[in-house]
């Protein structure tokens, strides 16, 4: 089981802030593929991953990173702090 969090417009497009899923995805990119194939709203949110950022267990990471041992994945647009 893995927690997936969505922020900002990713959260809005998908329609929820968080979900827990069972997955056998090996990398973040695999997980994105899996989500995309689920429903239109996921396909829409993940249409262009170059516009997205990912954090694994609350650390910024990359889409080709492995998911082994990861408990929390977060997807969000580029950050706009400050």
């Amino acid at each position: 089981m893995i927690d997936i969090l969505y922020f900002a417009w990713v959260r809005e497009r998908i329609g929820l802030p968080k979900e827990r899923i069972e997955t056998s995805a090996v990398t973040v990119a695999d997980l994105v593929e899996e989500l995309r194939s689920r429903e239109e709203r996921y396909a829409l949110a993940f249409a262009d991953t170059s516009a997205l950022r990912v954090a694994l267990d609350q650390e910024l990471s990359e889409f080709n990173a492995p998911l082994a041992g990861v408990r929390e994945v977060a997807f969000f647009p580029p950050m706009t702090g400050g």
Partner: protein
Amino acid sequence: MRIRVQEEAFDFGAEAQEFAARQSQSGAVVTFTGIVRDTDAGLQAMEIEHYPGMTQAQLTSFAKEAMQRFSLEDALVIHRHGRLVPGDMIMMVATAARHRKDAFEAAEYLMDYLKSRAPFWKREITTDGSADWVASKQEDETALSRW
């Protein structure tokens, strides 16, 4: 070193004064404050979303890196989330060092990382009711390459 992520307003003057007053070795203190400014479209509010579990850790890691890299005596980061209106202060950083160059660079470093690497997302609510996520700027991404 203090890092605060909070919804409530902070008192910039009091924070800046207290920060400067508690330094014993530093000849130079720099502060930066970000203020919600009105836009051409007419801004009603700015809503700031964040990633609670990650924000504090991320800001702490930036501040630790700045402390070491610029030989700081101290650093302070305060960042708000939630709903803000024009004129509200969004965040502040303060840095203290022996030399002004270090204090300035550390503050700029922290700001560059806060802008593009801290998990905050801003949404602008205009007076006509539309709500738009603020797009990240290429220049903010480029600014990071300086460090």
